[in-house]
């Protein structure tokens, strides 16, 4: 099960691009593990760009699995996985 979100987030990255944390709804989520990444094709005929997805285990008050994606230079929280 997963919950679709689709909201903008701020991402903290190390110099080697590894995501270390993200801020969603003013709360900080620390990334414990990057589980995987992939790129998804877009509706390019509608002017949309390829989206880069990253799935991470992160923790705030509790632990969870989150799917983030990058579109252009902006990051979004795609969904939260149970």
């Amino acid at each position, binding site marked *: 099960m997963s919950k679709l979100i689709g909201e903008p987030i701020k991402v903290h990255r190390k110099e080697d691009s590894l995501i270390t944390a993200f801020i969603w709804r003013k709360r900080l989520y620390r990334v414990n593990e990057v589980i995987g990444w992939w790129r998804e094709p877009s509706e*390019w005929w509608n002017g949309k760009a390829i989206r880069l997805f990253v799935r991470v285990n992160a923790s705030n008050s509790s632990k969870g699995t989150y799917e983030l994606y990058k579109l252009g230079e902006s990051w979004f929280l795609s969904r939260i996985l149970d």
Partner: protein
Amino acid sequence: MGFIHLHVHSQYSFLDGASSLDKLLEKVKALEMPALALTDHNRLTGAIRFYEKAKALGIKPIVGVEISLEDNYHLTLLCKNKKGYSNLCRLLTEAHLANRGRQPVATGEMLSKFNAGLIALSGCSRGKLPSLIEKGRVEQAKEAARFYREIYGSDFFVELIRYPSREGMSSSHQLASFAEEEGIPIVATNNVHYAEMEEYRVKELLNAIDLNIPVSQLPSCRTVEQYLKSSQEMSKLFRDLPEAITMTEEIASRCSLELETGKLHFPRFDTPRGENDCSYLSKIARAGALRKYSSLTPKIGNRLEYELDIISRLGFCGYFLVVGDIVRWAREHGIRCQARGSSVDSLVVYALDISNVDPIEHDLLFERFMHPLRYEPPDIDLDIDRRRRDEVRDYIYQKYGAENVACVGTINTYMARGAIRDVGKALQIPQELIGEACKGIHYLSASQLLEYADSYPELKKSDIYKRPELAKFFKMCAAIDGFPKHMSVHLGGLLIGDGRLSDLVPLEWSSGGDIISQYDKNDIEKLGIVKMDILALPTLTVIEDTLSNIKKARDIDIDLDRIDRNDPESFAMLCDGKSIGTFQLESPAQREMAGRLLPNRFEDIIVSISLVRPGPLKSNMDKLYLPRRHGKEPVTYLHPRLKNALGETLGVILYQEQVLKVAHDLAGMSYAGADGFRRAMTHDRTQEEMEKMRGFFISSAVGGGVDRALASKVFEQLASFAAYGFCEAHAAAYAVIAYQTLWLKCHYPAEFFAAVLSNQPMGYYPPRVLIADAKRFGVKILPLDINYSTDHYTVENGAIRVSLRQLKGMSKEVMESILSERANGKFTSLRDFVLRTNTSQPIVENLLKVNAFDSLDDRSELLSQLPELMKLKRIVGRGARAFFEDERLEPGIIKEAVRSDVKTKMLIERELLSLDLSAHPLDFLPFDNGFTRMKDLPSVATGKTVRIAGSVIRYQTPPTRNGNRVVYVIMEDGTGIADVTVFANVQEKCGQVLFREGWLVVDGKIQRRGPKALSIIAENLSPLNTTN
């Protein structure tokens, strides 16, 4: 860790690969990969050029395919060696030929039969193993693996492809475990479909075009990962299985295919017992020469021996015998055929009756065709009567065996219009926008469309190419510019192998049912397979039909080999520009040249054919030659020794053969060496190479006593000419046919026009223009009639009867039904016609509308039945021109037609016959407001401004010397033809009209470039409408 891509699709995976070979190879070079495999879907079409390009870049080429199997599975195959290549060709051939009209399928039996020398990878997600494992059918997967291992042994590998996705890469892990359990080595690939990631859009676009769906409806399993990844990226993806990466190098090292590109493959000819190819060729060539010349003078005898010696030394005797045999068979069966091109330079070709141009009489040089320093396939092209070309082809199949013969394939690629239509459909661009975007395009590629949108007036005037919302659409059109779409049959190319052809070339079906090579003619040549051009020439059919018409109408047998070659009447007609319908002499440029040259002998036609070419015109050969021809300038030679070479053309270089003669006579080069010199100057060469040639030519000439400055001047002339000159032998061969058509038109116009009209489409002009011309020759045109018209135009008492074929909607079956029934007796009434033939109501309706029942005895019955028929049918009025919009055909028009209203009849004839029989549309335009009819143009003074109106026959944009585009518009108004020249300033002013309008009003000045060469220099163009 080194990685090599072993599964790669290029644009030759028609409508699936999104990158050109150049792009893929450039990327591989940039990634410093030592090798690359090409594995297009079910074809090797790109393989030869890939092989050559890769070698040139220092990249090892690995030739392969991704082949389709039963149950729609895929398998990747790579050639280890020549045996593997040959087996792959045969496997592809069988997979294609066993599935005519369907997708190719290689059966297990075929894989087993053609396994040697091939490496197999289990394929992409559509491979049998990955598919079965994905579905959990492990036992079946094991069975399939055993089958592949039996066939390919240690050359079978499980192919692992990893595209990171939301679902992860579990299928790859499952497949790797399976391989480990089964003990099958693994190899990593990326099933590459494009060089760069962003090109996935092009791939998706192509897929949508292929599936005939909008891109938005593409299946959900989309990916952006099929790009040419670096070793680092691939190693990262397979960091848990490094052996899958290293295996790519191992497999690449097993592949060492060296294609033989230097060896020529000639068909084998069965000579009589006791003869070999060369002895037999000598025998029949000598006999042929004796027949032609009655006695062999030393000049002829020496020339014959010289040619035979060279042909023999080059090993081409069998080839000449094969071509000679084809021509012999054709002639024996009454099929008109003859050679074209440089082969006409050869006396052996003439002696074997392959050509009917005497090279001794015309002083043609054999070395232009063949010499010992030029080891490349000989090229004897044959023109054959179009109607009977397939009989000749069938004879070749029967004689040399179906396995050894195939047609040459040709690759059809995207130009601007096709790209706009297909991309527009895939991107769901509204039809009217697609139509508008296609409108102004005239011979442009999609890339040129963007390039010239701001400079070509006809593009500039339309805002469609500049609309921001369509910018991406046009960019995508340009992205598939030049991409292959499908293969079809090359117009004349036929391959005859020296054994089974499919050992060397993969073959497939064309959509028309011919077996064609997967390689185009250039790649065929690189492989050394001798190609023969057996070309269908409609003019030969016209000649044959004209002779037959003359025989039927006048009971006269004409031998065209014996007609007067300098007939004054024929040449007078040519000088007057009345050459419409003739071969090679009917174009506006040729008609204008006739008005300038004023030809009066056969050799003038050779000159005219050679001069009216982009090259000679661009280099002003006409301006040098014509004043000398008319005695207005003296005939001079830069050096007395040039008189021998240039005497026939009054000191001007007109033919390629003359380059050889000049180099021979002035610089002492051998003819063979001189031909090398000519060819070197013809092809792209560096400044350094040019200087080397200059130095060699000048020093050789100076060594022979020629002044250095003069030698330098001659060299400059040769250099500027060599790239453009025309082959005299080819021009002479064409001049023979051209003159025959001219003579036939002049003396038997009805028979000639009937033949030309029966063989449409051909030539420059549509039937209505030919009909108008025939009328100007005093030939009466009889209307279509169900009791007299046949499936072709016929001659009746000196008049031409319109063919049934000319009627809109007429099919071959209906025509046959009418003709076979009429053989039992003429039709007596409409009822009789309807009852006895299988003619549909629309066809009967069309026949009624063009008064095809007029000859019936009982017209009252016809008329009384007419209203009943009319109730059933709707009269269509599409196609009436803009200025007749208010008079579109409506129900009731038949009554009008029967009442013989001329204007109505004219409209019906235009609509249903595409002819102007009763009248011309412009007959109804008031010409009292300053218009000049085209028939009156010759009497208008040079420089005077005229206004003409007419329909556009065609637009032309030939290359020009300075590169500025000039548009030529050929128009007609029913009284004659006018040639209009539109320069850049007028193109700019009238861009919205150019290429878009079918009817024009032209204001312009009369120009004469010769005594009878008239054209109009346009000052303004506007669409023709009723207000003009």
